């Protein structure tokens, strides 16, 4: 995958296809407030949180435990 780099100012936006819009809502110091409008079947997450969930799911899925020996 390649990366397209664009410069945007406050309140400007980017369209991805005709259904996704990303707007710059605020800039304060090293923080940028971004608004994302997308169809409901597109999940939007902070990357580090999504990766943490992926990792936890992978860990949970990778284990093989003795299910006869789990507490009840």
């Amino acid at each position, binding site marked *: 995958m390649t990366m397209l780099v664009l410069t945007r100012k406050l309140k400007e936006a980017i369209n991805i296809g005709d259904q996704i819009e990303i707007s710059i809502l605020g800039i304060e110091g090293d923080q940028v407030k971004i608004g994302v409008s997308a169809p*409901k079947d597109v999940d939007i997450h*902070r990357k580090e949180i999504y990766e943490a*969930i992926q990792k936890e799911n992978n860990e*949970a*899925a990778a284990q093989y435990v003795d299910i006869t020996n*789990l507490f009840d």
Partner: protein
Amino acid sequence: MLIETKYLGEQEITNQKLLSFPLGLPGFQEEKSFVLLDIPGNGVLQLLQSVQSPMLAFIVTNPHMFYKEYNFSLDTPTIDTLKINEEKDIVILSIMTIHEPFDQSTINLKAPIIMNAKEKIGKQVILNQNDYPLKANIQIPQDQEGGE
């Protein structure tokens, strides 16, 4: 239909038991069909077994057994995706990560699995409004229930 499972050998599954996960799960986006299986002799834990991948099964539990005050609201896209009309149709499960000894195991309160039991649709929802932990201890401190 007959499916191969990670823990319970071959299982006969009726179509009514099939759960659709249209978005898959984070890390398992191609896994769109699961089934919830009881663990014989265990009334607390269940298995969320992939229909297409025999070796993929999560151990899941009702988080309210461990955290009575666990609660959150669902956003509109989730309610739409799951076609939820009535609150009573909602089933909440948490994925458990097993550790030895067993009481060191954790449940994922940050990203519960929400299901519409009536429509048989599920989704793992990432809660952004709440500060619930990804690895919540299954032992509840006596003076402090709920999230960390």
